[in-house]
């Protein structure tokens, strides 16, 4: 190193601590004068009209209400709220890879229409009790495969439950409710209460993410917690519509905070499902949200099978970048639990879910998502999602651009590209009625809450 280099280095080091401080050249002094301009030079909501400009630098606080907690625990009357979204667009593409010499081969185009309405009510007559219900109307009916555009089904009760707490020491929830276990981001393999015996294929297993009728009891144990559930779902009943006590699903889950890790240990039992347990660990390491878990199931033939998942999420909020990755291994080959009266040779079914609801494939699978929000300071997001199932080599890649030209309005352009044999896992899940392998879609959404 020459003297010149050392001298430069010295000057740089000497200036180092002050150089960076000069980056903020905003003239902020005027905010600290006796009559400063509006702090942010922007309108304020009426309820918070306490702009810095009109107040002395230090002043007594306004008279505090008895407790801010009250407004969340007791509310007069019934609260109503809802949301609506409607969309329209089109999808065009090829049933197979496009042939550049014959672009018309396998080409088709179709419109896309959809809407969703959600209406909720909530009543909190006193601090220990509340009732919450949600009605949901979806079009088209996504619970059928392929999606039906001709059936307009009546609204369904998505949730209807009451909460009851005893001195905030014991929390009870009874009614139709969503119960989500686990730490999965894409494949809900660890959501044990979501698993059901598939009625169309007795003694085989599927996944149902709709709300079940359940009783959930939670006991906070300081930073830890313990909860137990008893749940019934339609697919739990194999014999009749009247549930037998044995056909109820029973679960127990504990959450423990150990250092900087959140550990969940739980177990679930239902007569037609293999008894199973899960262990999940969550931690944030170097700014990455990391989770890993194992699911142990008893195998009807004897012994146990072990499935696993691992996922990670990293976000660089300053530049609007996020990336998520999840891997699972599903050791369950779809046979589920075979009770003693099972028909010999009951066939396996794909465990990827019922209809178009989310599920998880057999064997190894991976899904990744990466995207930028508000790219280059615009109202445009870009992203790409990739899912791959190793057992049959099928998958899908969806690059997409989301543009928000006006408030409440979203324009989405996507290019889903499916690969794999026509009978493969992912190809079978393609929600496009025409099962296009390579497509271009454009959709306009308008949505709001009220």
């Amino acid at each position, binding site marked *: 190193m020459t003297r010149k280099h050392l001298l430069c280095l*010295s000057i740089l080091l000497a200036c180092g601590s002050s150089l960076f401080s000069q980056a903020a050249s905003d003239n902020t002094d005027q905010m600290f004068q006796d009559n400063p301009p509006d702090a942010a030079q*922007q309108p304020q909501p009426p309820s918070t009209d306490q702009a810095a400009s009109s107040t002395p630098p230090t002043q007594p606080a306004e008279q505090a209400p008895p407790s801010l907690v009250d407004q969340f625990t007791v509310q007069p009357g019934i609260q109503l709220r809802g949301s609506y979204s409607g969309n329209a667009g089109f999808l065009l593409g090829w049933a197979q890879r496009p042939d550049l010499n014959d672009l018309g081969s396998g080409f088709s185009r179709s419109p896309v229409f959809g809407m969703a309405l959600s209406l909720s009510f909530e009543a909190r007559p006193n601090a220990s009790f*509340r009732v919450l219900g949600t009605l949901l109307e979806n079009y088209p009916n996504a619970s059928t495969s392929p999606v039906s555009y001709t059936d307009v089904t009546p609204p369904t009760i998505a949730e209807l439950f009451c909460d009851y707490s005893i001195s905030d020491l014991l*929390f009870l929830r009874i009614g139709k409710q969503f119960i989500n276990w686990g730490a999965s981001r894409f494949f809900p393999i660890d959501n044990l209460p979501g698993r059901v015996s598939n009625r169309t294929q007795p003694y085989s297993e599927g996944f149902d993410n709709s709300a079940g009728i359940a009783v959930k009891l*939670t006991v906070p144990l300081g930073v830890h917690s313990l909860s137990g559930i008893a749940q019934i779902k339609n697919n739990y009943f194999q014999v009749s519509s009247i549930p037998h006590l044995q056909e109820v699903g029973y679960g127990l889950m504990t959450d423990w*905070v150990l250092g*900087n890790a959140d550990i969940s240990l739980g177990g679930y039992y239902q007569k037609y499902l293999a008894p199973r347990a899960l262990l999940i660990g969550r931690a944030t390491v170097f700014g990455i949200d990391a989770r890993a878990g194992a699911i142990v199931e008893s195998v009807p033939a004897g012994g146990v099978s072990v499935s696993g998942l691992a996922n990670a999420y990293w976000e660089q909020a300053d530049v609007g970048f996020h990336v998520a990755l999840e891997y699972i291994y599903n050791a369950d080959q779809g046979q589920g639990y075979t009770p003693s009266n099972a028909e010999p040779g009951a066939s396996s079914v794909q465990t990827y879910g019922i209809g178009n609801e989310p599920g998880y494939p057999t064997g190894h699978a991976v899904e990744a998502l990466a995207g930028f929000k508000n790219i280059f300071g615009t109202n445009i997001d870009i992203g790409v999602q990739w899912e791959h199932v190793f057992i049959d080599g099928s998958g899908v890649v969806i690059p997409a651009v989301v543009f928000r030209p006006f408030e409440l309005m979203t324009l989405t352009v996507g290019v889903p590209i499916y690969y794999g044999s026509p009978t493969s896992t992912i190809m079978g899940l393609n929600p496009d009625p025409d099962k296009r392998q390579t497509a271009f879609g454009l959709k306009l959404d308008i949505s709001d809450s009220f």
Partner: protein
Amino acid sequence: MTEKKRMRYSAVLAILLVLDTQLWADPDAKDLLRKVDSLVSFPDSDFSAEYTFVTNRPDEGFDTTQAAIFRRDAENKYLILLLAPKVDRGKGYLKIGDNLWFYDPVPRKYVFTSSRDRFRNSNARNSDFTRSTFASDYSVQQTSKERLGKYDCTVLSLKANSSEVTFPFAKLWISEDSLVRKGEDYSLSRQLLRTLLIPTYQGIGSRFVPQTIVIMDQLKGRVIDGKYIGDRTQITISKPSLAKLPDNLFTKAYLEKVSR
């Protein structure tokens, strides 16, 4: 002076300059940081308040988020319940120690996440809602004096003591009443990330709570007419209270109960 000696002196000078900020730091600066922390922390009581975040994105308009914040500094806990916009009402954050959970009422699921994340896509961070811990999180590298409007301020240049701290470097402008009036947060490469301005405080008991905080983002923004304009978030804090909060308020079960 021989060439060899010159080289030695230059090397010593370089090393000294590396250490300059440590050696020349005001020994009272750490005490000042402790006082700053003590004036805006509530180790002997609970704290609750309503926060309103108005984020101004150039060419995009305003986003308003309202939240109720409940803090128990003695146990390093907080609970945040979102009140507005309506689409986010019922979502919440629970922080216990270094662990943070986000509760989404739609799938009725908790997400274990990083407190360094931005709060609801504003210019605030989840870590902004914890008690003030400048004295333990940072070492003072340099002190100086500077006038900020009508305030004579002590300016402290700070370096984080561990990688767990949200911002590796920071600068604080502290007025004579030991309240932070301005702050700058820097990345590891000393890129200015955001500037905070706290023109007014409100007294509560023997402590203080900012009445208004303006956060100017130096990374998120856009160029308009050839000039870079960063996103700005103004936080207004109302209804501050030191009333005792229920012990089980800082639990997942409670958050689930009060969520929509």
